[in-house]
């Protein structure tokens, strides 16, 4: 029993630790080994192995599921950086499959069609780490309680429109600040309102931050978008469709990587933004019918 406890404590530390090592970096969506190699050479700190990027999932419609394990394996074999992959919200068998093929991180993602409209995967039962999307502090702490060891904003994937990611990160930040400003005896009521465990609310109150790393995701398409999210307090960036749906993926990918490191250096970000070719065309987040961010609350 005590051994089990130690083992699971160690996994939490190791899995949160890997997210800490990814900080200041850019995780890029890739669909082929070739794209994975381009992303790695351009400075991605990890890749997300997918069958289709979110923009294409949006265009194709229908049910979006976990990728073919063979596609994922080919990508694992192509690069030396960590490889992540997505499972549907609540689809714990897809998660078991991803763990079985030795994935480095599972994204339980609203980009895919949810398999369960009530329950998320019980991520505490897994040894492999999970990252989950969150739009506010309640969602963030519920995902952590379920065992997520990394978070990201949901944003609105596949749009190239950064507005939702900005909204989610600002909301999270302001809720953290509010929670931290409360008296101790007010925490119980606040935890109840947020629908989160008291212990996690108290952690945020005492430390003025989440217990896990939080990246920005959903709509980042330019170096300026990446620097914007970093200045707003993101600890790193996920770029989905933004790289391989653009005119010059390798150049844009590297520019986003450099802007994520030097997010306060406007001169450098200006230079990085030059001659990148066309960005992904994008679609305004308020023009779309399929709202992915509303999946999994």
């Amino acid at each position, binding site marked *: 029993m005590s051994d089990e406890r130690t083992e699971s404590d*160690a996994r939490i*530390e*190791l*899995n949160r*630790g*890997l997210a*800490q*090592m*990814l*900080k*200041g*970096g850019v995780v890029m969506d890739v669909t082929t080994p070739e794209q994975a190699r381009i992303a*790695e050479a351009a*400075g*991605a*700190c*990890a890749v997300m192995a997918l069958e289709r990027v979110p923009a294409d999932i949006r265009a194709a419609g229908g049910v979006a599921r976990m990728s073919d394990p063979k596609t994922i394996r080919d990508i*694992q074999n192509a690069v*030396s*950086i*960590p*490889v992540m992959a997505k499972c549907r919200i609540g689809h714990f068998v897809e998660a078991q499959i991803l*763990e079985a093929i*030795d*994935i*480095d*991180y599972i994204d339980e993602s609203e980009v895919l069609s949810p398999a369960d409209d009530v329950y998320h995967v019980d991520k505490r039962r897994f*040894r*492999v*780490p999970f990252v989950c999307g969150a739009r506010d502090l309640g969602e963030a702490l519920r995902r952590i309680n379920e065992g997520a060891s990394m978070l990201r904003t949901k944003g609105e994937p596949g749009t190239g429109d950064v507005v939702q990611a900005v909204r989610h990160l600002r909301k999270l930040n302001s809720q953290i600040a509010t929670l931290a400003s409360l008296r101790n005896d007010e925490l119980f009521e606040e935890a109840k309102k947020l629908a989160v465990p008291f212990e996690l609310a108290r952690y945020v109150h005492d430390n003025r931050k989440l217990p896990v790393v939080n990246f920005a995701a959903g709509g980042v398409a330019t170096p300026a978008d990446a620097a914007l999210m970093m200045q707003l307090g993101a600890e790193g960036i996920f770029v989905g469709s933004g790289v391989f749906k653009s005119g010059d993926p390798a150049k844009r990918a*590297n520019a986003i*990587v*450099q802007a994520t*490191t*030097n997010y306060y*250096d406007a001169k450098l970000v200006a230079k990085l933004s030059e001659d990148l070719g066309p960005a992904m065309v994008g679609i305004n987040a308020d023009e779309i019918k399929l709202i992915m961010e509303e999946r999994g609350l």
Partner: protein
Amino acid sequence: MTTIRIGILAVQGAFVEHERMLRALGCECVELRKPSDIDRVDGLVLPGGESSVQGMLVRQLGLFEPLRREIVRGTPVLATCAGMILLAEKIRNDPRVYFGTLPIEVDRNAYGRQLASFRKTARFDRLGDFETIFIRAPRVVKKGDDVRTLAVVDDAIVAVAFRNQLAMAFHPELGRDDRIHRRFISLINARRDALNLERQKRDAAENGGGDENNADPRPLS
């Protein structure tokens, strides 16, 4: 004694964790992102992260030459995980070489993917038991004769010292035990004393205008 000023490579990875630990020990920390940040630093930290990303950014941002110069000049360096890879003379499973100032050969991702990451108590040179955290970690597969082994885990060398360089495959910055950071600080203090001594000798030689053997080699403080 003036405050110790430590430059922490901050292009990617877990640099804030080192900063927090060193600040708590009374050091001043400066994040290194561009060449002008490397200004009068007494020590350098190369943190964990992705070595391929850090190595690329260090070159693209013009940090490579000035950092290498500091290391070669003898500025104490604490390198963890990816940092150890950046210092290594050779990487067995990767053709790239970064600073190459530490005569060791390392195996990158030596234990495998994340599911193979582990925590273990190891014996660390002169410190005794130390809780070590290995995350997609490298290990040393070969080392030069004058490289000292500081810790061994499962028959693999995981921490070494060579002149001014202190490198380990695990992450002392993730735990609460700051003894390795304290040792790094004492390395910095020893170097500052040595530099002061040299300066005093030089000054004495200049002022006395004669035989430098007459100068008192001991620092005045």
